[in-house]
């Protein structure tokens, strides 16, 4: 069964450093998403991406964040200068479409720890 994959599974970084989280969505999916989940809290939407551009983004997704689909398979989330409060689990998800039927398939997540 096709699945969303994410690397690395755990990333430890120093405050102020840049990190890139990588995701490989399911191959025939057209919509891609990033979410974060601070330990013990709810899942928070960061951004949705379609046709090589951002469709929607939340208030969390400020200028420190960017997304890219550098080739036909990868979907990345970059945090330019990490803060302590960026420590969270980051989930990538993909779906066939966003409108009438958009079951989102989540990856296993990358745990980001900012020291």
């Amino acid at each position, binding site marked *: 069964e096709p699945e969303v994959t994410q690397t690395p599974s755990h990333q430890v970084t120093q405050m102020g450093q840049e990190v890139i989280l990588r995701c490989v969505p399911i191959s025939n999916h057209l*919509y891609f*998403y990033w*979410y974060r989940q601070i330990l013990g*809290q*709810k*899942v*928070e*939407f960061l951004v*949705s991406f*379609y046709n090589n551009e951002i*469709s*929607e983004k*939340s*208030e969390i997704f400020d200028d420190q964040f960017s997304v890219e689909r550098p080739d036909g398979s990868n979907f990345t989330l970059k945090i330019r200068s990490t803060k302590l409060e960026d420590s969270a689990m980051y*989930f990538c998800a993909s*779906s066939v479409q*966003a*409108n*009438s*039927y*958009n*079951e*989102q*398939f*989540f*990856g*296993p*997540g990358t745990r980001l720890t900012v020291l």
Partner: protein
Amino acid sequence: GQQVMQIPQYQHVQEGEDFTTYCNSSTTLSNIQWYKQRPGGHPVFLIQLVKSGEVKKQKRLTFQFGEAKKNSSLHITATQTTDVGTYFCAGITNAGKSTFGDGTTLTVKP
């Protein structure tokens, strides 16, 4: 912005008892999705509701979407230990923006 509230935050039940979690949105939803997240796992899609008043069943799980498309519920009949986890509702916009509820964490005592 859109807010999605979910209650209760925690529910502890004896195996065999029923369980219900409720989801309320501050705005009318295009559709609503339900996810289950096991401890240490990632959210797994359960179902999507689109129509006003829609009711869908999956074995022991019953999902309802309110007439005004602002509230939803998930009911589990005769819980089992495999039902443990956190259940999230998520309001979805047509552009794919999701607003997740706070989740209800279910524990089942055998």
